[in-house]
């Protein structure tokens, strides 16, 4: 579904990605784990066309989308739940969800809203509340629900566990699994919480300094002693 070939990009003269090859197949959850500054977020952003790739290709469902403007890319069945959630704080939950459906057919709105609220019943209770008054976990739910409102085939999730209590993280990851399994949405997940991410993912990649250092199935990577030493021990369970 999504294929990255020799992707390079960065900010100004600073290069953040040094040739990434990666594939996400239909129906999969693929995760990218790695330390701060490894280039995970940049990778997701480059897929969305901001920053533009300086070399290499992004191919979505056979179509080269490398050079497209962000707002065109985001209309091709990709949705992005950005790092730090970035919900609209002064707008209500319902308005946030409406914004998520900005590019979708308005005829779907009611059905999509119901689907999103079934997934996150908590949001249903808070529809008239302003986004900024939600708790961190609820804001993350809203960010994911908002991304789903455009009926994406591929969902890019950037650190959904950021700053959340362990119990909430577990709940969010449960829902991500549901979105993938029951709604057939392909997911590319960027995470620092390697333990949860790898347990959830079909396949995983470890990023180090803008390159992919290790790849394998989620279970393989979880069992890898090097990964345990670097990313898991201490932070796990």
């Amino acid at each position, binding site marked *: 579904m999504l294929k990255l070939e020799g992707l390079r990009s960065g900010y100004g003269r600073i290069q953040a990605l040094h040739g990434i090859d990666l594939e996400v197949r239909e129906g999969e959850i693929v995760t990218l784990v790695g330390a701060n500054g490894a280039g995970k977020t940049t990778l997701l952003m480059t897929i*969305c066309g*901001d920053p533009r790739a300086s070399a290499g290709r992004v191919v979505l469902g056979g179509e080269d989308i490398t050079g497209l*403007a*962000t*707002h065109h890319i*985001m*209309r091709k069945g990709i*949705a*992005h*739940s*950005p790092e730090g959630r*970035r*919900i*609209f*704080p*002064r*707008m*209500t939950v*319902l*308005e946030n969800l*409406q*914004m*998520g459906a*900005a*590019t979708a057919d308005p005829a779907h709105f*009611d059905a999509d*809203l119901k689907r999103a609220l079934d997934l996150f019943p908590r949001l249903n209770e808070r*529809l*008239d509340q302003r986004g900024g008054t939600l708790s961190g976990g609820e804001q993350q739910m809203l960010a994911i629900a*908002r*991304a789903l409102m*455009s009926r994406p085939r591929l969902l890019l999730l950037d650190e959904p566990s950021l700053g959340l209590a362990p119990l909430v993280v577990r709940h969010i990851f449960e829902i991500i699994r549901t979105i993938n399994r029951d709604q057939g949405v392909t997911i590319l997940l960027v995470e620092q919480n390697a333990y949860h991410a790898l347990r959830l993912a079909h396949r995983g990649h470890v990023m180090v300094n803008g390159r992919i250092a290790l790849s394998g199935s989620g279970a393989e990577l979880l069992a890898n002693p090097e990964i345990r030493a670097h990313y898991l021990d201490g932070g796990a369970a």
Partner: protein
Amino acid sequence: MRGPVRDAALAAFVAAALALPMLGFRLVDSASGLTLAGRFDLVAWAAGLVFAGRLGLRLLGGLLPSLPALPAPPARLGDMRRHAGWALTAFALVLPFLPFADRNLVDKATLVLIYVMLGWGLNIVVGLAGLLDLGFVAFYAVGAYSYALLSQTFGLSFWVCLPLAGLFAALFGLVLGFPVLRLRGDYIAIVTMGLGEIIRVVLQNWQDVTGGPNGITGIERPSLFGLSFKATAPEGQRTFAEFFGLEFSGDHRVIFLYFLILALALATNLFTLRIRRLPVGRAWEALREDEIACRSLGINPTMVKLSAFALGAMFAGFAGSFFATRQGFISPESFTFHESAVILAIVVLGGMGSQIGIVLAALLLVGLPEWFRELQQFRMLAFGGAMVLIMLWKPAGLLSRRDPTIRLGDAG
């Protein structure tokens, strides 16, 4: 105690430094020509007042926000505000016919309404889309000059020129919007301020077309469906007084102009209220909240910003052509940066995005100074003081609560 005193002393020092050149010297016409005389007692007064004021503010400052005990906001504030809106509209409709309403009052109300309309127009750009525009008066000027020039060159009537003036202003909004697209926040303010000044300077210097600093005089007054408001109608027209069998009075035109700007302002308000519920309007607000999130949702920020700029400018253009037809005379002096600042102050004091807040702020900032003309040179001091007090009392503006555009019941 030492902290506040030091702070107040510092403020007094700044005040003295400012007052010295502004108040401290005075040119005296004496036998030997102009000489400089000192008025240092005034400087001392200024410094003393600032010291006392600052100290008082610091000591009582904690009390200030709680001092004026506002009624607690009712559960459905939106409803109350809607009722207030209807009440204000009804009042505005009957105002010219009230017993105490003389020509002077209606004239001042017209002036306030111009600023209400400008505030509502700028609110689209600043309050909804969050683009800090300090050059809004440029579009007001474009509207005014569009009408004046079209009317004088081609003899077009006000009613033909009004939409054209709006269109021209919107086009200028698009053109001036482009350089602003890549900028954010404070930088937008600086660039728009510069663009606003450019327009004024062009108007001032393009003598052949705009008349330069002399401006344009004898601008055609508007008619009501071909009925003139002059004492004697031009060839082939009838006067308003004749048609309705009234005795001619200059008040008719004043009242007509009042209703004209009321209609234009209400149209602006209606437009804003409607568009907030449409995808474009929602995208403006979302863009104000978080541009990156907007992009990740597939929204094209370029289109959203340009549409806000152009539509805001359009309403300024309408207001500008009304201004031109009301005054009958325009010159670049009416379109200085000060005007932009006042309009922006109206939007900010009103609470960024609140329609009724803007009405209140316009009444305060434009209406009060007009009524307090007796204060003469202290007028602007009162104006500045009022602004400082409002910001201390309600830092987010008079009515800063944002009404949601959709509620649970509406969504189904």
